[in-house]
């Protein structure tokens, strides 16, 4: 299998890049984007002053942002308008069940702690399992997951954070979810029939709430 070789080449490459950089943040005057002669260079914060106090990581900002948030080390505001709804969803989606890499677990909760549904739905992903042709090829081009991963969220070199579940285990979990949904749907359509019999409109099966488990 030729791509196995590529994959191990990556693993080594990624590891070497990661270690080459860990634990050092460049001074603003040497980072290539700030003007070292500008008046702000002494006023702006050096990234290491803030980031070295947060749970550490090897890639990206070298901060484990999810742990920083959940441990309460940082308390980023969810909105400016205090009445704005902070929408969350706790639902894992399993992708890539039969590929050469381990399966991908996409956790809605970790994402909706930072992001709003509208950051992904519907312009990046239709909110329907399997309805999007997600592929590593497009991700690497900065589309789909690659809009954020590789730009602001942890970079694409961190294969195993996405490809995190053995295929057989993901297949088992998805089979269980699908069985539960089938059962629920059978129950729901029974209910709809009864209500229709009683002369009132039941919930449409294709309504956004049908089959949602919360």
């Amino acid at each position, binding site marked *: 299998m030729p*791509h196995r070789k*590529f994959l191990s080449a990556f693993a080594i490459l990624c590891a070497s*890049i990661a270690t080459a950089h860990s634990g050092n943040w460049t001074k603003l005057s040497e980072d290539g*984007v700030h003007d070292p002669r*500008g008046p702000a260079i002494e006023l702006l914060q050096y*990234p290491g002053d803030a980031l070295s106090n947060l749970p550490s990581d090897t890639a990206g900002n070298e901060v484990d942002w999810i742990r920083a948030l959940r441990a309460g080390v940082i308390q980023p*505001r969810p909105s*400016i308008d205090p009445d704005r709804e902070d929408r969350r969803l706790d639902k894992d989606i399993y992708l890539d069940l039969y590929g050469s*890499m381990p399966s991908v677990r996409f956790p809605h909760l970790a994402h909706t702690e930072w992001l709003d549904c509208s950051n992904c739905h519907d312009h990046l992903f239709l909110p329907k399992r399997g309805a999007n042709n997600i592929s590593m090829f497009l991700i690497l081009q900065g589309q789909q997951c*690659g809009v954020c991963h590789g730009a602001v969220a942890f970079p694409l070199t961190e294969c195993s954070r996405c490809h995190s579940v053995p295929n057989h285990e993901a297949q088992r979990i998805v089979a269980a979810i699908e069985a539960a949904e089938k059962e629920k749907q059978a129950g729901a359509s029974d209910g709809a029939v009864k209500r229709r019999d009683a002369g009132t409109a039941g919930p449409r099966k294709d309504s956004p709430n049908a089959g949602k488990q919360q």
Partner: protein
Amino acid sequence: MIRRLHALLGAPLLVGVLAIGHSLESRAEYADVVLNRNSEKEGMRPVVFPHWFHRIRFRCKVCHAELGFKMRAGSNLVTMGDIIDGRFCGACHNGEIAWAPENCDLCHSGKPGLPPGIFGGHETNGPGIW
């Protein structure tokens, strides 16, 4: 079959991207964005927006849902008029949530000549649409 193809295409591509990214030796902090659609044309340094600094204080949804910044470097036409009227950066940089727009140099801190785009020092160069 298609999956296989992707695997085969993806792997060398990624090696390519990483190699390019690495050889450019971009040293900016991961996810720093340069905004420079009009600044330099109008005699100001480019703007450097640090994601790391802001995400300690605000979740992504504040800027990218509530305040309407599109997630694509260079795609938001931000003007000083907007900022002074309380839109985009000005929703916070209003002297209440954060310091006021009169601190020109804190935002306009970039090296002259930089193109708009995302920069990042560690693992990737930020793909954007390459």
